[in-house]
């Protein structure tokens, strides 16, 4: 079986990680392929994984009664997907549907959490990257709450 090290190493998310730390992470990784229309995960399901998208696009959906599924964000090649694996109760708050053929690295959440406990340096780097992702998503949410495009004429 081919080692996923070179693939994970090439991901933007892991660019600043040491060789040692990436090798640790490889032990939690599997390669996945999903087809257009398939769900990576569904709202309410246990959040067991964290994904790095290598190819394709995923829509994050929230089901609103009376309105059907509303897309709240799309995530593309090179971007990480999902942080619920990190925070109890480890359940997905959104559904992730493939808009296209999807190739991704799936990292086992429990495995990652265990490695972070055992290796605080890896844990710190991973938490810092996750915090960056969260910060950028929160900032994007704030911008959207402002209804940015509504006032110019």
């Amino acid at each position, binding site marked *: 079986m081919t080692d996923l090290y070179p693939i994970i190493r090439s991901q933007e998310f892991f660019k600043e990680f040491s060789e040692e730390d990436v090798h640790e992470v490889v032990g939690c990784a599997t390669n996945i392929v999903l087809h257009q229309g398939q769900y990576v995960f569904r709202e309410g399901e246990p959040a067991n994984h964290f994904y790095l998208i290598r190819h394709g696009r995923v829509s994050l959906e929230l089901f609103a009664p009376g309105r059907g599924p509303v897309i709240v964000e799309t995530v593309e090649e090179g971007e990480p997907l999902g942080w619920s694996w990190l925070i109890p109760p480890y359940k997905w708050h959104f559904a992730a549907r493939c808009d296209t053929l999807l190739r991704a690295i799936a990292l086992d959440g429990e495995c990652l959490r265990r490695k972070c406990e055992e290796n605080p340096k890896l844990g710190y780097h991973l938490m810092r990257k996750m915090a960056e992702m969260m910060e950028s998503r929160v900032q*994007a949410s704030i911008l959207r709450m402002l209804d940015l495009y509504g006032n110019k004429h």
Partner: protein
Amino acid sequence: MATSIERAVGAADPMVPAPYVVERFIRETQDTFSLELEPFDPSAELRFLPGQFNMLYVFGVGEVPISISGDAAEPKKLVHTTREVGVVTRAMRGLKPGHTIGVRGPFGTSWPMEAAKGHDVVLVAGGIGLAPLRPALYWILRNRDDYGKVVLLYGTRSPEDILYSKELAKWRSQFDLEVYITVDRATSEWRGNVGVVTKLVGRAPFDPADTVAMVCGPEIMMRFAVEELARRGVPTSDIYVSMERNMKCGIGLCGHCQLRGEFVCKDGPVYRFDAIEPLFMEREL
């Protein structure tokens, strides 16, 4: 590579509106529309540069500044796109082919079409901010060999709010122009990006060290777009923004659009970002 602002072409008598006839009224989205105008005097023409604006006068109602959104290569056909937001633009929405409207202009500075030659060009538009950028895109497409990679990043509220959707579809199918569109919210029928336009900056294919960026939209969107462009490595001296203030006279006399020492109608609306940066963050301006 610090680029520079291009200056306005002056009008003969800037305070006297010239009569124009509404040739076409185009409903663009639920709350935006375009007016295609032709001069009352068939020999007249209005030469402008991309990014400039006109004062449009609905007789008996009032006058408003609206960016020109048509093609500078067609000076006999004037196009303005606006959102219905006040008394004058509401009256404008009621105009029909054959009606007359007053036009003063063109006023203000333009997008740096000359300075951008030989470089990649990134246009970042938010909402109706696409309208003042459309003339720049027409210009580039007419002179395509003068520019490097050209990327349009456009964000709007929903798929229904996409401006110039037919033209965007045409531009997307061209091989010499990259068009990325994102919306704030969508239903599952939408097959494009969902998220803020600033997110597209990180993904777009251009060389940050050799790029001129033109940004137009609400100021807060421009602020975050500039931050993202700078994060990608585009110097702020190569980023241009279009400011919007309460322009009245159009020639820097009345002071309605004054921003510290700047008269946005005359010194703007297009500014090189590094020149206006200190004012950008100031409150109550």
